[in-house]
């Protein structure tokens, strides 16, 4: 079932463990993202799969074949580099044809394949341009086409969109997913951008300090973050601190006390607890009508949404509201806050 597997993969530089005991299996045709802050070992992991970095311990298998120690030029993987690494002295078609040429494909067939791939990434008009004549987005497409044309079993993407501006990045996200679906190539992408990882992956692997902290589908990851780090890193989250009472979690609030009902499965009474509350799950009520009162200290207009920061007895909270007909709350105004008990997540 699993196509690409990493088993107890580790990489050490001296005494520093950059990647620590990473185990992951990717199914055929799946789009998996390695997500984490810079320096978390995600790029090193990709480099080990590509064969550019020596594996310290562990095993990598591709379609049942052990490729842990094979040379990078025999693995046959398609790689899109962060800098794109296009060949500057070759035209777009020559860049794309290079991999086929290395595989000694006959000229006529090579020509057909290059043409089809150029069409796939919509670069027909630039087939004879040199990389320096192209825009960032176009170069990105060339890099993708060059990696895809060899029909690799696995496509590795190293921060493929990080050099593009915000608008283009969003477009390329959809495009990338579209192309991946169409071609059906198993894909592993490294990124530090959580929206990017969430929007295009089937599964997201969150890494922190060389270790995997959670592997889940984007929705599960967002709704059920397993650590405080993930709840902060993936989307926006309010984190409340408290301790577990006999029933539910008792959220510590000074000067007063407030009891909040949550599912307390597996929690020991008396233990401290962290609660995650997504800002879009909070709604405004009239003052003293909700679960908590607060005062707006700042508001930001995000186009489709308003982001409020409120001062409450439970600390500072973020609230996201859709930009609807209702007039937005002024800074300094007092309001009540409410949410459904299901919106509160206990962080382990």
């Amino acid at each position, binding site marked *: 079932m699993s196509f690409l597997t990493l088993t107890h993969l580790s990489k050490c530089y001296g005494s520093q463990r950059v990647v620590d005991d990473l185990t992951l299996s990717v199914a055929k045709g799946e789009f998996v993202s390695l997500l984490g802050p810079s320096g978390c070992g995600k790029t090193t992991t990709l480099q080990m799969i590509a064969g550019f970095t020596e594996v310290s311990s562990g095993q990598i298998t591709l379609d049942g074949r052990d490729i842990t120690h094979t040379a990078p030029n025999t693995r046959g993987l398609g*790689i899109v580099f962060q800098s794109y690494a296009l060949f500057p002295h070759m035209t777009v078609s020559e860049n794309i044809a290079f991999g086929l040429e290395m595989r000694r494909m006959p000229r006529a067939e090579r020509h057909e394949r290059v043409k089809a791939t150029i069409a796939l990434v919509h670069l027909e008009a630039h087939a004879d341009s040199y990389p320096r004549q192209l825009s960032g987005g176009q170069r990105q497409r060339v890099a993708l086409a060059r990696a895809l044309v060899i029909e690799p079993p696995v496509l590795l993407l190293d921060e493929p969109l990080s050099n593009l501006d915000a608008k283009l990045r969003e477009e390329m996200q959809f495009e990338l997913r579209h192309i991946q679906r169409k071609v059906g190539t198993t894909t592993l992408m490294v990124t530090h951008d959580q929206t990017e990882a969430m929007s295009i992956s089937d599964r997201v692997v969150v890494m922190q300090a060389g270790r995997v902290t959670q592997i889940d589908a984007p929705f599960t990851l967002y709704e059920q973050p397993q650590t405080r780090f993930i709840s902060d890193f993936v989307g926006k989250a309010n984190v409340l601190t408290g301790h577990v009472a006999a029933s539910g979690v008792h959220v510590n609030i000074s000067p007063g006390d407030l009891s909040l009902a949550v599912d307390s499965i597996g929690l020991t009474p008396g233990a401290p607890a962290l609660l995650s509350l997504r800002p879009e799950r909070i709604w405004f009520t009239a003052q003293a009508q909700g679960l908590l009162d607060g005062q707006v200290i700042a508001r930001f207009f995000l186009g489709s949404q308003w982001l409020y920061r409120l001062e409450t007895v439970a600390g500072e909270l973020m609230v996201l509201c859709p930009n609807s007909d209702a007039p937005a709350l002024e800074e300094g105004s007092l309001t009540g806050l409410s949410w459904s008990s299901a919106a509160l997540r206990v962080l382990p």
Partner: protein
Amino acid sequence: MSAPALLLFACMLLVPLGLTTVLSFHVFDHATGVKDGYTTAHYLAVVTDEYYHGIFWRTFWISGLTTLLCLAIGAPEAYILSRMSNPWRSICLLVVLAPLLVSVVVRAFGWSMLLGPQGVINHALQAIGLGPVRILYTETAVIIALVHVMLPFMVIPIWTSLQKLDPWVENAALSLNASPFTALRRIVLPQVVPGLLSGSLLVFGLSASAFAIPGLLGGRRLKMVATVVYDEYLHELNWPLGGAIALVLLLANLIVMLSYNRLFERRYKNAMG
């Protein structure tokens, strides 16, 4: 803003060049020296005399061979240097540059001690039963010393070109099934052509006009153009002829370098941008 530089350039280069040109057309008499009349006899002598043909030919083939050897040694050296990590890179770069820190005369004498009949190299060759061999005062000695001196002028431009390369480009080629050698030949080499070109031009130009090394290691009989110019000026005191030879060398050098540049520029125009 560039006026002071231009002025300096005019004073230090154009004026002496102009004076030499004028001088080279003056009539010369062995008994009385430079005279007021004008003649093209000196140029005619250089162009028609077999003696000068031989010297020009020797100068150019020695310079050409020195350039080729510098390319063959310097290009891999620069590549290895660019792949090294500090502090080794800095140390090795310093070693490469070291010949420039020592006076060319001292270096030439050093080589003459090594290559001489009683030198280290002949002793070594004798020890393995190959000697003695005459190296000093032959073309071989001149070429060995020239390659040694010129190597930094080849390594530095190539190294600079290599520094501009995206380090991932080579890995990209590997990921597309290219062997390391193919990646080097098809991907790295075409991108360092500007470095190879400027290195070759520097080495060729400097070798063709080299004076101290052919003078000290070539001996009295093995003459190159620069040493002939020196002889004309200081031994024969025939300044007009010396000037004419120097200008012909300048012209020949310019023609060789410009056509070499054109040849490469046309071929790699697209890649260079």
